[in-house]
């Protein structure tokens, strides 16, 4: 799997390269600025890009902008965005084209190598990986949303994990449930939120995120 990395802090960049290579991923470019990133993405067309939001030269949201521009030129180009803070606003912008292949995680998630690699692979496969903190914020801002309020605590847990982008199997593993029990919960959630159920994991996640983003 070919990966492009964009991160301006030398230590962190090297750490990421090391981590990804140790898990058998092929890092084809590791750049440190917005323009370099855009060039690398368009030239290398990687299977997935791991991008820091704040990059030189402006140290604003160069990384995010470069990723969005690249995704306009190469639709569905998988991008996993890393940041020191998460904003619903950025999550919305990343998800806006509705084509999936998007990850948005706090930098701390790199600490847990296995889960991080899992997220990278999920994004590369066209899935989503949303940070639990993004989902928590989404649900908090939906606190007064009528259908969300009708979910049982267990359904809420399933919804959170589902919105992060996990499959039924992964959710079941996390909550110590059988896959069929998770399937029943998801069917209930979709019923309560008034969404059309789908067997495709990715499409299901995008539907949930779109619903929560509607507010």
């Amino acid at each position, binding site marked *: 799997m070919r990966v492009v990395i964009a991160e301006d802090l030398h230590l962190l960049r090297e750490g990421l390269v090391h981590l990804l290579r140790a898990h058998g991923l092929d890092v084809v470019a590791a750049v440190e600025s917005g323009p370099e990133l855009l060039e690398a993405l368009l030239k290398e067309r990687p299977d997935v890009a791991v991008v820091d939001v704040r990059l030189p030269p402006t140290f604003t949201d160069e990384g995010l902008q470069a990723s969005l521009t690249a995704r306009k030129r190469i639709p569905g180009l998988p991008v996993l965005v890393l940041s020191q*803070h998460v904003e619903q*606003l950025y999550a919305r912008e990343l998800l806006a084209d509705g084509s999936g292949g998007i990850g948005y995680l706090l930098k*701390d998630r790199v600490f847990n190598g296995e889960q991080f690699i899992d997220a990278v692979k999920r994004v590369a496969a066209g899935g989503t990986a949303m940070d639990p903190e993004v989902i928590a914020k989404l649900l*908090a801002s939906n606190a007064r949303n009528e259908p969300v309020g009708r979910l049982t605590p267990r359904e809420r847990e399933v919804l959170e994990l589902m919105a992060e982008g996990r499959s039924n199997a992964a959710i079941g593993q996390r909550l110590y449930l059988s896959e069929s029990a998770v399937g029943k919960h998801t069917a209930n959630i979709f019923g309560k939120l008034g969404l059309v159920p789908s067997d495709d994991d990715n499409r299901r996640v995008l539907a949930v995120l779109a619903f929560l983003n509607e*507010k």
Partner: protein
Amino acid sequence: MTTRALVTGTALFCVALLGELVAVVALVAMVLSTVLGMIFLVPPVVRLVRRLTGLNRRLAREWSGVEIDEPYLPEPDPPVRLPDGWYRDGRSLYRTPRIPAFNRRLSWLLKDSATWRDFGFLAADMWAGGLLAGAPAILVVVGVVQLAGGSPIGLLWLLLVLGAARWYAPWAVHVHGVIARVMLGRTEKARLAQQVSRLARARTDVVDSQAAELRRIERDLHDGAQARLVAVGMTIGAAEELMESDPAAAKALLAKARDASSTALQELRQLVRGIHPPVLAERGLADAVRALALDTPLRTHVTVELPGRLNAPLESAAYFAVSEVLTNVVRHSGATQAWIDVSTSGDRLRITVTDDGHGGADASRGTGLAGIERRLGAFDGILALNSPMGGPTTAVIELPRALQVVRPPVTWRTVTMGICWSLCWIPLFPQGFVAMILKLVGITEKSWFLALHMPPSLQWPTIIGMILLGTGMLATAATLSAQHRKANEVACA
């Protein structure tokens, strides 16, 4: 409109006339008080003068649309009774407060430069603004008297008034107000003194709150991230020692260290958000407000009209003001929806937050809002809260001088435009049309009409030339104005 301006102009002239009378009375009183020592005349005379200038200020506001602030020094405190029952005034002691009180009042009145400027205004008003505002009425009187005396030139004055009153009368009334403001308004010195005391207060507030903020950050770092990093270091050290003897325990310790560093990061994130939110640094006020709106549980509608980035300290003050207001809306108003509007007018930033809650909010109760007001105060900004019982609540945050407004440079175009607009009437009316009427009617009076002083063969060409010149100037002015406006519209778009 014209009639009203004519009437007010005449009234202003009458007031000026009255002012002249009062000025004469005041002069006599002043002479009496200095020469004959009749010092008791001063306070009532000054009071009379101030009453009349007060009337002039009010008329300037109501009729001329010119706001004039009162320039007077604050009145002195009454004399304090000493423990022994006497009243002190300088080095003298008095049994009753009457004389010290009088002395204080006297020195208050005489030492205030505004008192003397008031006298000056009353003496000069009739010859400056008053004459200007009353000119049409005076011309009518002169004209009628001349006509009654059999002189046809009187008709000319009446015609002049009839023709020019439309633009002259409102202008003269306004100019009267402007002249009054020059003489009756606050002097630069008084204004600066007031501003200095306000700025000193704002600076103390800012320094205090800044110090408190730094103390809070220091405490948070000390008890939070710093302490956790110490723990992480210690845990890693312990794991290092156990590495060989008990690898499983070392692994468990390392996992603990990782969790602790994660928590430290989380705390640092919280802290950073409170100092300067990353989204504000990355995207500016517009998107930061949108991000705020997304994070509230309310249904929020955001409209932003900003020409670009504002400077960072001001942006941050505006952001935290909106944030605090929204927090209050969520906590206290019971609202389900909120509308945030960010816009600019001139160089002023204006943010309105409206909610559909039950109202009854009181800015003086919330400590958060008081802090925001202080912070805005450092930029001369204000937070105004309008929250009637039953709602809706509207909070308005206003920051002056938030944007750099580019003043149009003075070019030959603007200069030409100004000259043409202000002078085109001279060749057009008196030198052109009026001279033409006089020539047609055959009146021998020449006055200041250039054409009538010319040899007969050059009279008509001069008149026509004048009319053409005036029309040309008018057309030039109009064309340049139109171009100017168009250019402005393009620049705005």
